[in-house]
């Protein structure tokens, strides 16, 4: 039935859209967009979802494709420069040809991607996050917490099968001193767009646990700058900064410091270094005990030496007072008939007898004359 209204067919409308698009954007052009999903298909083509966000809301969205004749080269170059594969959450600068199909709608065909832009965007985002945390006074907040002197009940946030977590446990278990630690794993996604939310969820599980943990350790075994870009996430940094327990990070990067490191109580480079940190705290305590043992032993030895010295002095004094020691030097001791020492000639008379004691014996004598001094 004919209508009284003029109308276009759907095909006519969409053909008009296509023609307008082709007239407006006849050439390839560079666009900036966030990658919201990526699917490399078995047929070799790679399908992308692109979007643009403003204040957390999506304000534009489009499908894009990299045909299989371009995808291997683009993917390889992107990985060579950034150390990462294309992944959701990345900011991209792409050269596209806008196309429109009456059946499939708008499609952007990608033939170039600028990987340096993605690296730069991540760095810009990192600096903005840092500046915001500084404005909010959150950069130093963790470092004002008090760590127990012997932190031994540890909550670890890691991917369960991560090599770094394995290294950490092995290093801790095989410490040469025999110190024991209680480690509980709170598994989380440690890479990519979902990592911040997953780590925040693990932090919440630790906080609501009935066990009181001395510290929380966030670790992974390294990765490329973009793999680790999740550790620059504002939401994650905000949660760490406001956390009630000291948070340690060992994110395993050599060159860069991530925002999570900067807001944490303490950051080291590797999980093994983190294990060493806790072992060293216990080793220092062990050494302190050894110093007590040495100090007490020394004090006891000094006391015994002082007592021995006192005995030596007494022995010397007694020995010095023994008359037999004087006789050995050539003196003689005169004794009366009762064995008492004679101290004056006045007590004796001619014909009296006395005994002269020498060191090696005695002489019995009789007095021929008494000659007092004046």
């Amino acid at each position: 039935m004919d209508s009284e209204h003029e109308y276009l067919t759907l095909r006519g409308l969409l053909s008009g859209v296509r023609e307008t698009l082709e007239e407006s954007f006849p050439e390839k052009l560079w666009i900036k967009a966030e990658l919201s999903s990526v699917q490399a298909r078995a047929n070799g083509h790679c399908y992308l979802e692109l979007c643009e966000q403003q204040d957390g809301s999506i304000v534009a969205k489009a499908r894009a494709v990299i045909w299989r004749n371009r995808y291997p080269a683009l993917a390889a170059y992107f990985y060579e420069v950034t150390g990462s594969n294309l992944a959701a959450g990345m900011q991209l600068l792409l050269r596209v040809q806008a196309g429109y199909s009456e059946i499939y709608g708008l499609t952007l065909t990608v033939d170039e991607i600028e990987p340096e832009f993605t690296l730069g965007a991540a760095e810009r985002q990192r600096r903005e996050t840092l500046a915001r945390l500084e404005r909010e006074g959150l950069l130093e907040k963790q470092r004002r917490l008090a760590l127990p002197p012997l932190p031994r009940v540890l909550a670890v946030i890691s991917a369960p099968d991560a090599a770094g977590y394995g290294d950490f446990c092995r290093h801790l278990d095989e410490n040469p001193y025999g110190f024991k630690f209680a480690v509980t794993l709170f598994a989380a996604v440690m890479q990519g767009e979902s990592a911040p939310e997953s780590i925040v969820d693990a932090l919440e599980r630790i906080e609501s646990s009935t066990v009181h943990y001395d510290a929380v350790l966030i670790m992974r075994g390294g990765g490329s700058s973009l793999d680790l870009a999740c550790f620059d996430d504002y939401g994650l940094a905000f949660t760490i900064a406001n956390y009630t327990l000291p948070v340690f990070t060992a994110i395993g990067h050599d060159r860069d410091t991530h925002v999570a490191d900067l807001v944490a109580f303490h950051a080291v480079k590797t999980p093994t270094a983190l294990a060493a940190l806790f072992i060293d705290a216990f080793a220092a305590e062990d050494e302190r005990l050894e110093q007590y043992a040495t100090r007490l032993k020394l004090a006891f030895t000094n006391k015994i030496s002082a007592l021995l010295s006192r005995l030596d002095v007494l022995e010397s004094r007694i020995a010095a007072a023994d008359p037999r020691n004087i006789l050995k030097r050539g003196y003689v001791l005169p004794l009366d008939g009762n064995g008492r020492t004679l101290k004056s000639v006045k007590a004796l008379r001619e014909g009296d007898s006395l005994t002269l004691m020498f060191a090696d014996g005695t002489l019995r004598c009789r007095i021929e004359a008494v000659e007092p001094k004046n």
Partner: protein
Amino acid sequence: MDEKFNYTEALKRLEIIAQKVEDPATGIDETDKYLAESGKLISECREYLRSVKDTL
């Protein structure tokens, strides 16, 4: 080890004992008792550093 072993208190006691033993006025009999006590405390502290049973 005593179930209620308190590491911090044990260290405080060790410090007092060290000062007593270092004091020349402390007699040898007393010193002997202090040394026996300190030996026990140091062993307990070392055991504490190598055990998790008191913490969980």
